[in-house]
């Protein structure tokens, strides 16, 4: 019995080692989500948490994609609707709607997304640059990831968190 246990533990530790190898091996971990018909992703390390939608407070005199602020365990955090930000119509929230709370340095903001897809591991080689049509430094796109038959747009977290009004 104990031998078997050892074996399992060994296997697991080997697996873990393989994992860490994987990580060092130019692999980017992302979380994918849907906005409209497009699939987007952000680096997993930029995500503070993903939560179910709840009440927020409207803030006046801001662009329409800023829905307002909400209370995340005592902090007041802005809430941004990515649908509207990306030029789509605002949609009513469904059971699949989530708030992704992104964090970079001290900047924290919540983003409304239509639906989560999955956690992704994409090799750096499979990530292409943003298409040329998107203009220079202003782009919110970090790159385009290819996996199997899908194309996923990877977003720049610092651009998302940057105030642009």
């Amino acid at each position: 019995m104990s031998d078997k246990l050892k074996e399992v533990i060994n296997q697991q530790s080997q697996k873990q080692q393989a994992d860490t190898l994987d990580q060092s091996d130019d692999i980017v971990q992302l979380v994918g989500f849907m906005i409209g018909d497009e699939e987007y992703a952000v680096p997993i390390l930029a995500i503070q948490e993903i939560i179910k939608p709840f009440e927020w407070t409207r803030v006046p005199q801001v662009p329409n994609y800023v829905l307002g602020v909400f209370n995340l365990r005592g902090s007041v955090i802005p809430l941004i609707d990515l649908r509207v930000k990306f030029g789509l119509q605002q949609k009513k929230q469904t059971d699949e709607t989530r708030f992704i709370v992104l964090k970079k340095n001290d900047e924290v903001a919540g983003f409304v997304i239509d639906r989560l897809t999955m956690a992704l591991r994409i090799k750096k080689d499979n990530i292409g640059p943003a298409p040329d049509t998107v203009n220079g430094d202003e782009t919110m796109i970090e790159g385009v990831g290819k996996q199997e038959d899908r194309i996923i747009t990877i977003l720049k977290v610092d651009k998302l968190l940057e105030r642009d009004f």
Partner: protein
Amino acid sequence: MDEFQEILQDFLVESFELVEKLDEDLIELESNPEDLELLNGIFRVAHTIKGASSFLNFDVLTHLTHHMEDVLNKARHGELIITPDIMDVILESIDLMKALLETIRDTGADAGIDVSECVVRLDKISGGDGNVETPVAAAEPQQEVQEEVVEETPADDEDELDYDNMSPEEIEAEIERLLNQRQEEDRKKREAKIAAGEKVPSLDSDSASEEPKEEKKESEAAKPVSTPAPTQSAPAKAKPQAKKEDPKAAAPTKRSSASNVEQTIRVDVKRLDHLMNLIGELVLAKNRLIKINDDVEERYEGEEFLEELNQVVSIVSIVTTDLQIAVMKTRMLPIGKVFNKFPRMIRDLSRELNKKIELEISGEDTELDKSIVEEIGDPLVHIIRNSCDHGIEEPEDRIAAGKPETGTIKLKAYNEGNHIIIQVDDDGKGLDAEALKAKALEKGLISEKEADGMSEKEAFLLIMKPGFSTAAKVTNVSGRGVGMDVVKTNIEKVNGIIEVDSVKGKGSSMKLKIPLTLAIIQALLVGVQEENYAIPLASVLETVRISKDEIYTVEGRSVMRLREDVLSLVHIGDIFEVERILDTSEHAYVVVLGLGTSKLGLIVDTLVGQEEIVIKSLGDYLKGVDGIAGATIRGDGGVTLIVDVVALMDIARGVKSTVMMEAEAGAAKINEKNSPSDYTVMIVDDSSTDRMIMRKALEPMGITLVEASDGQEALHTLKSGDHNFDAMLIDIEMPRMDGYSLASEIKKYNRYKNLPLIAVTSRSSKSDRMRGVESGMVEYITKPYSADYLSSVVQRNIKFKSEFM
């Protein structure tokens, strides 16, 4: 090196505190040149700084302070009477000393400031020893030598060099002379002390290296944050009680010679800020607890555990409040810290302006938050300068007007509720309302029309306008028309209010009303439609309930009459772009906001209440939203925005109120029903069978029916705004949210005030009916019911037009 830095830091902190006190003492000394205790105190300050700076190798500073010490020492022994001219030199040297200390703080060395001129003058006063004419670097070592020999200061290394510059005889002679001089002084000092009935400590100024240290210790211990006269030097404190009965007790800036040394500890302000933040969190949690307690109380009325819960909640709430006050107090500083610099300022000003002015300070013990103390220094300087320059007349004019030659400026501080009032009164010529108006007109700051309608008090406030100055000539002191604007801006920054009052020929009075603290504030919560906003209570003068026909429109702006004033009005919804769904109520609440000098009536839908709120920043992303100062988290966990009253007043100027129009438009909209399907009714029931029964009963009418299976869903559907409901049929027993809660939730929203809610239930007891009425239901239908009955009730409630039947 680190140790040196540490010592340097201590030295700087101590020196700045000593110097600050020095100014005040010297001014007092001028009016009481005989006061030995004061003189001793001042002498000690110079001496302490000298001792420490020589230890730290700040040669220039040592040089300067040494000569100051000489002069003061003479005065102390009665060989010198302090005249205003001598005082000018002493004050100048103190200014230099401050500059030196600042240089040391910024650069770590005391180079770059030339003190020789001042030193020469100091020396002339002290009897012209002659040897000061030598340049700083050379004069310096001589002092060091003298000190070394007499006081055994271990500062050998720096002197070596300088011996080389002199012939041995010179040094010998100099040492001899200085030694004698110093010994003579020491002897006299002892004698003077003995004469004053004092016990002479055997170690009296024997060792300079020991003394400063000792003093440092003592004055540190004697430096409680809350005592206004903390740097009273140690010997003065140790004096016998008899000293206290000195006649100088009546001096203008009287000090209390506190004999008991308070225990204090220095704390980094950052720690206090952190503590304050934590308290903020605690206050939020407390608010939440109170809210939950209220909810539980409602639901489990009469249960035994409620009593216990109540007790715990009230204890927690009391302790939190006490804790908050205690922490706030640690951040409090006596306003004396700001007041300290004014005696000196008045003195300089009165000499500069050739006026005789006396300053009376009271209430310097009054405490307020550190951050505010830092903000009010500048405004006060401007106000006092203004009083000196424009308020107090020339001596001859004063005599001609039958007033005492010396003008008086009274500076006082006192508490009033949650505010501190700082008042500056002068007995000068006062403000002339007509002249102010004329001046403002001339400068194009107001229109003719505005001038006519202006009350005296409003005219006084004109002096706060940027670019306004009544002084015929621009003097060095004021008249550039900037100062009072600064006052207004700074006071507004701390949510303060300014009042100006004046009687022509008698004097004027300026009152600053400032909140005690900034981080946790009392706020008035107001509601507009379904949104809430928090207004800092400090800016709220009053609230009034008015009927809509009390609102007049003047030049496209809404105004109302508030007692004898006309108050311009603005709807909070117009400022914060609140969508106004429907508002048929005849009344409105007006929150009268006062800030700095202006007033504004803010129309709101409801007054929610007063609550203690903690200001939280909106973060970088949303920073700087016009009209919003921050946010706070409420008892229910929701976020409420805090109104920035300053910005709001600015915005209000550009907004035309639309109170009347919207109400009329709204009223017209609801009556447009062209077919039966324009009526929409929601059915809320968890049983699909029941929903079906209701649907069957109502379908024949041809109206639109929407279903929801519980309270939450119903509320969601209602708020989504997809339908314009004319009535709701609500079951009472439902999962997630029952009918009563649903009804009271709905009734919280202004726009649903008139939405008929009809209870459909099998509960039929009287108390159930009562609860239904309380939660806002208009009808109560008991199951089972007939289809006809249900449809007739619905028809009645939605005011179904007869032509559709």
